[in-house]
């Protein structure tokens, strides 16, 4: 199993370690629910170094990404701007979801998921070769080039980061959402996966242990993948491999807002998406009965069947919530039935964003 540079720190702090996409990662450090609340109320930090940072550089870098990604990389004009996108196969299925940072002209940083990284890199390299473009694709995993990533999230996240990295305060304080600033060999981004304010910090792997401990001293609570999952679920954010994969169109996974079908630009998967429009609505469910919604449970609605793609207990709402692929006619406010073991439980259809900046939205 692969380990991040912070593996020993996690063990030292009592983490329960689990296999996540071939990486040994912390599930929690005692209580997943307390870690969840720390992010909503104060500040938590996550080791996300298992995700793979890839440098896409060269005179054709923009042309390459323009054709590779479903979102339009031409939305990245200002240095530091970030863009969420899917990368599709020819059939319009999602190979991965990712964030592209525009570092400088001809210089982009793409952050891809851990479990899909090897496949993504093969795909990207093969497309580059097929299209004959002048681009280098460099994963920042090994040796002196290796990077680590730490996400600090929560209403107090900025203060903790500035306490740990005072030299980054002026550049990061000015960041608008979904931007990044380079400070020395650190990249500070105002992105995240929790629905809270905060930063994602990319830095040389050799410096990660020192930053992790400084952040802990500043009061950022170490949080595991368990809390990361319930936080992103409450925020209505998709998880690759669960809410979408190579067999699912981004239009059926609530990601139409990330797919640019309007511009004349061609990209891999576009023809397939145009030929097969949206089949499902991707919405939230709020369980009205007692119990816990889970992935793959069947949903019965007045308009036909659907399926839960992610479900859990929401520590903020103190009830179970889910993301689900529902029939196109399903609408917010509908009451549906979910098959939980041998019973049918009632749930209300809601917009798939349950909590944002500490506030309940449903």
């Amino acid at each position, binding site marked *: 199993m692969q380990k991040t540079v912070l593996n020993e720190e996690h063990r030292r702090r009592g983490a*329960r370690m689990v296999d996540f996409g071939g990486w040994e990662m912390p*599930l*929690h450090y005692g*209580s*997943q*629910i307390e870690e969840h609340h720390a992010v909503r109320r104060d500040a938590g930090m996550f080791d996300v170094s298992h995700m793979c940072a890839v440098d896409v550089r060269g005179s054709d870098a923009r042309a390459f990404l323009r054709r590779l990604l479903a979102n339009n990389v031409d939305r990245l004009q200002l240095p530091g701007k970030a863009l969420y996108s899917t990368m599709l196969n020819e059939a319009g299925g999602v190979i991965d979801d990712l964030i592209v940072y525009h570092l400088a002209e001809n210089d982009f940083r793409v952050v891809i998921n851990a479990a899909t990284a090897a496949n993504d890199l093969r795909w990207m390299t093969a497309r580059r070769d097929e299209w004959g473009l002048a681009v280098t694709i460099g994963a920042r995993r090994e040796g002196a080039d290796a990077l680590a990533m730490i996400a600090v999230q929560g209403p107090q996240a900025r203060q903790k980061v500035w306490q740990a990295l005072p030299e980054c305060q002026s550049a990061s304080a000015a960041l608008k959402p979904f931007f990044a600033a380079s400070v020395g060999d650190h990249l500070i981004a105002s992105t995240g996966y929790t629905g809270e304010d905060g930063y994602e910090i990319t830095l040389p792997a050799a410096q990660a242990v020192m930053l992790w401990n400084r952040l802990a001293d500043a009061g950022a609570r170490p949080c595991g993948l*368990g809390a990361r999952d*319930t936080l992103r679920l409450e925020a209505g954010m998709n998880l690759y491999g669960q809410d979408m994969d190579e067999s699912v169109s981004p239009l059926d996974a609530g990601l139409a807002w990330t797919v640019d079908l309007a511009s004349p630009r061609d990209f891999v998967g576009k023809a397939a998406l145009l030929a097969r429009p949206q089949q499902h609505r991707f919405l939230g469910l709020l369980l009205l009965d*007692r*119990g*816990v919604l*889970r992935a793959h449970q069947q949903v019965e609605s007045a308009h036909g069947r659907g399926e839960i793609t992610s479900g*859990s*207990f929401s*520590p903020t709402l103190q009830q*179970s919530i889910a993301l689900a692929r529902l029939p196109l006619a399903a609408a917010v406010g509908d009451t549906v039935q979910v098959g939980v*073991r041998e019973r049918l439980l009632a749930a209300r259809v809601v917009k798939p964003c349950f909590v944002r900046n500490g506030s309940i939205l449903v």
Partner: protein
Amino acid sequence: MNIPTDLKYTRSHEWVRLEADGTIRIGITDHAQELLGDLVFIELPEPGRELAAEQEAAVVESVKAAADVYAPLAGSVIENNQALADAPELVNQDAYAAWLFRMRPAAVNDLDSLLDAAAYQEIVAAA
């Protein structure tokens, strides 16, 4: 690992306490609650329900997963722990105090078929 010696155990991580009146209280072990993590929902069997040994009796759900709890012996359910309906985290706080349900076993001698603390300890260590 917290495995009290005055209790009996099953391979499926239930603990069983024999009461003076011949009934048994059933819960899940400290090892089981630790594996599951924070519990958020518990479904308990209704009093009066007849259960076969190793039949599914209750469900404990953590943030991460759902797990079945089995009847350690054949018998009838006579009480369930309503305190857990609103506070499933009691099981995380003290797994041996937070009993799930009470049964009247069909035959008290059946208790001899359960594991003692040393035997359960071996199973946990081997897992």
